[in-house]
C-alpha cells in the first residue's frame, strides 16, 4: 500500500512538472519558431505513447503507425481544405488538376466539422480493429504481424500517391490556411495550436498510465511475456492485443490530426515505411516499456533529426542507424533503463571478474 502511494505520488509530481514545463516554461523561453517545432515533436510523442502501449507493454511491434497518423492527418486536412475553399468551391489542388468538377463523394462528409473531428480518431481505430481482428484471431504474431503492419504502411502510401486527383498525390494536402476559423499564419493562433497539442499529449499520457496500471495492463504484459499461459488461464489474448492495437491507432490518429495545423501539411512522405519506423525508434531509444522514456525519447529523436539533418544530412543517417543498433542491441530497455543497468553492472562486476580468472586458470 505504501509502495502504491509512493508510486502514485511520484507520478503526480512528474505529471505536474511536465504540465508546468509545457504550459509555462516552454512558451516563455522559446521563440515562435522553436515553439512550432516543439509542437511537431509533441505530435511524435503522442504516437510514441501508443507505441509504448502496443509494443512496450503488449509486444506488438507495429511498423505501420504511419497509416493511422496519416488517416488522422488526412481526415483533418480534408476538412480544413474544404473549409479554406469555402462553400460551393473545390479545394485549390483539385481546381489545379481540373479533373474533378465537384467534390468526390467520400470527401463530402468531411465538410462537417463534427464528423471530421470524430473521424480523425475513429477512422484509424476502425482500420486497426479490422486488421487486428483478422490477424490476432488467427494467431498471426511476432514478426509476421510486424511485416503485415509494414506492408499496410507501404500499400497505403502507394495508394495515396496513385490517387493524384483526389488526395493530392505525392504532394499531399498542403498550404492549409485556417483552423476552425482561426488563421494559422497568426502567431497567436499558432500558440493556441501548441497549447491544444500539449494538452492532448498530457491527456494521452494520463490515459495510457491508467491503462497500464489497471488489471487490463497486467493482462497485456502477461500476454506479451507468455501468451499461451494467458490462454490456458481462460483469457482470449486476441482481444487483449486488439484493444492495445486499437488504442495505439487512435492515439496516432489524434497525433496526425493535430500535426496538420501545427505544420500545415500532410503527405505520403510523412506516413510511409520510413516515417513509420522512425516513430518506433524514438520509443526504442527512450525505453519502450516506460511511458516517460518513450515520450522523452520520441521528442529527443525528433529534435536531433531537425538539429542534425539540416547541417549534416549524411551524418544524420549514419547517426540514426547507429542509434537503432546501439539502443536495441545493447540497451533493449532504452535510456530509461540505463541507470538500472549501470547499477547492476557495478554490483556484479567484481564477481564476474573473479569467474573469468578462475576460468582462465582452469
Amino acid at each position, binding site marked *: 500500500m505504501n509502495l502504491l502511494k509512493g508510486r502514485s505520488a511520484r507520478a503526480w509530481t512528474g505529471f505536474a512538472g511536465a504540465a508546468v514545463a509545457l504550459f509555462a516554461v516552454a512558451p516563455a523561453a522559446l521563440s515562435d519558431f522553436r515553439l512550432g517545432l516543439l509542437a511537431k515533436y509533441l505530435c511524435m510523442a503522442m504516437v510514441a505513447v501508443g507505441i509504448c502501449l502496443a509494443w512496450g507493454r503488449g509486444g506488438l511491434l507495429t511498423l505501420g503507425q504511419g497509416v493511422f497518423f496519416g488517416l488522422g492527418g488526412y481526415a483533418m486536412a480534408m476538412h480544413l481544405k474544404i473549409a479554406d475553399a469555402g462553400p460551393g468551391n473545390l479545394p485549390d489542388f483539385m481546381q489545379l488538376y481540373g479533373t474533378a468538377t465537384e467534390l468526390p463523394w467520400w470527401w463530402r462528409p468531411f465538410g462537417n466539422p463534427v464528423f471530421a473531428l470524430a473521424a480523425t480518431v475513429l477512422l484509424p481505430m476502425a482500420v486497426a480493429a479490422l*486488421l487486428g481482428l483478422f*490477424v490476432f484471431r488467427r494467431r498471426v504474431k*511476432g*514478426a509476421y504481424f510486424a511485416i503485415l503492419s509494414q*506492408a499496410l504502411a*507501404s500499400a497505403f502510401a502507394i495508394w495515396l500517391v*496513385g490517387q493524384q486527383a483526389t488526395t493530392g498525390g505525392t504532394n499531399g494536402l498542403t498550404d492549409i490556411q485556417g483552423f476552425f476559423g482561426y488563421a494559422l499564419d497568426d502567431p497567436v493562433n499558432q500558440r493556441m495550436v501548441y497549447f491544444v497539442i500539449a494538452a492532448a499529449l498530457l491527456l494521452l499520457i494520463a490515459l495510457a498510465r491508467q491503462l497500464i496500471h489497471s488489471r487490463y495492463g497486467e493482462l497485456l504484459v502477461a500476454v506479451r511475456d507468455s501468451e499461451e499461459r494467458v490462454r490456458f488461464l481462460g483469457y482470449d489474448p486476441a482481444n487483449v492485443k486488439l484493444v492495445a492495437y486499437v488504442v495505439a491507432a487512435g492515439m496516432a490518429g489524434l497525433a496526425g490530426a493535430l500535426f496538420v495545423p501545427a505544420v500545415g501539411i500532410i503527405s505520403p512522405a510523412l506516413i510511409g515505411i520510413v516515417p513509420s519506423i522512425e516513430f518506433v525508434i524514438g520509443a526504442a531509444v527512450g525505453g519502450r516499456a516506460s511511458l516517460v522514456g518513450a515520450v522523452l525519447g520520441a521528442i529527443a529523436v525528433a529534435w536531433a533529426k531537425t538539429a542534425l539533418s539540416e547541417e549534416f544530412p*549524411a551524418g544524420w543517417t549514419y547517426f540514426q*542507424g547507429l542509434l537503432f543498433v546501439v539502443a*536495441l542491441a545493447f540497451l533493449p530497455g532504452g535510456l530509461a533503463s540505463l541507470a538500472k543497468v549501470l547499477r547492476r553492472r557495478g554490483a556484479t562486476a567484481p564477481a564476474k571478474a573473479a569467474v573469468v580468472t578462475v576460468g582462465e586458470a582452469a
Partner: protein
Amino acid sequence: MTVILGQTFTGISIGAVLLLIALGLSLTFGQMNVINMAHGEFIMAGAYTTYVLQKSISSAGISLIVALPVAFLVSGALGALLEWLLIRRLYLRPLDTLLVTWGVSLMLQQLARDIFGAPNVQTRAPDALTGNITVIGGADPLTFATSRLFILGLAIAAVVALSLTLRLTPLGRRIRAVVQNRDLAEVSGISTARVDRTAFFIGSGLAGVAGVALTLVGPIGPTMGTNVIIDAFLVIVVGGIGRLRGSVIVAFVLGVLQAVLEYSTTVSVAKVLVLVAIVAFLQWRPQGLYTLRTRSLV
C-alpha cells in the same frame, strides 16, 4: 488470348525476381528466425558490384557472368560479417533483430550514397539480353523480353542449386537439422553457431545474385533494396518458413496476381488488393502455405 499470355508471362517474370530475393530470406528467416531488413541492401551491394565490374571489364556479357559469383561472395561476406557482429547476440529477440538490421540498412544505404552518389546509375545489358523473342507472330504478336527469360532461368537455377545443396550435401543436412530442432542438433554435436553463419552467408549471397539480375530490368540506386524487400517478406509470410516449396509457389502466384491486378486496375490499387488477398489467405492458413509440422505451441 495474347493479352492473357503476355500478362501471365509478365507475372511470372515479376515472380522470378521476387523468388530470387525471397530465396535468401527463406534461408535466413527459416534457419535462424532472423528478419534481416538489411537483405535489401545486400541486393543493392550485388547490383553495385555489377556496376563496378562493368567499368573494368568492357564486354557486358563477360562482366555479367563474372558478376554472378563475385556478387555472391561480396553480399555473402557482408552477411556473414553482420551475423558475426550483431545478429548472433540477438538470437532470442527476433523483433529487436528486425529493428537493428533496419538500422544497418540505413547506414549501408548512406554508404552507397557516399561512394556512388545519390542518383541512380545504369549498367549496359549484354546484346544477347536486350531484344525480344517472338513467340506468336502475326498481327497480334506475343513477345518475351530475353532479359526476363534470363532472370527466370537464373531463379530456377538458384532454386535447384539451393534445394540440391540442402538435400544432398552434409552442410545441407546440418542446416535442415538445425531448422527442425536446434537443441537436438546442438546436443548431437553440430556447431549450430557455425551452421548459422554459413546459412547466413549463403542467404545473403543469394541476395547479391538477385542484385545482379535486377540490373537487367531497372536502375541501380541506394534505395533499390527497400523498394522490393517488403514484397519479398510477404512471400515468406504467405509461403511459410522452413520449406522452399512454399516460397517458390507463392512468389509466382503473387507475381501473376500483381500483374493481372495491375492490368485490370492501377499499380497502386493492385498493391492494396494484393495485401487484402494476403490477409484473407492468412485467415485460412495462418502459418503460411507449407509449414514444418511440430508439436510446439508456437
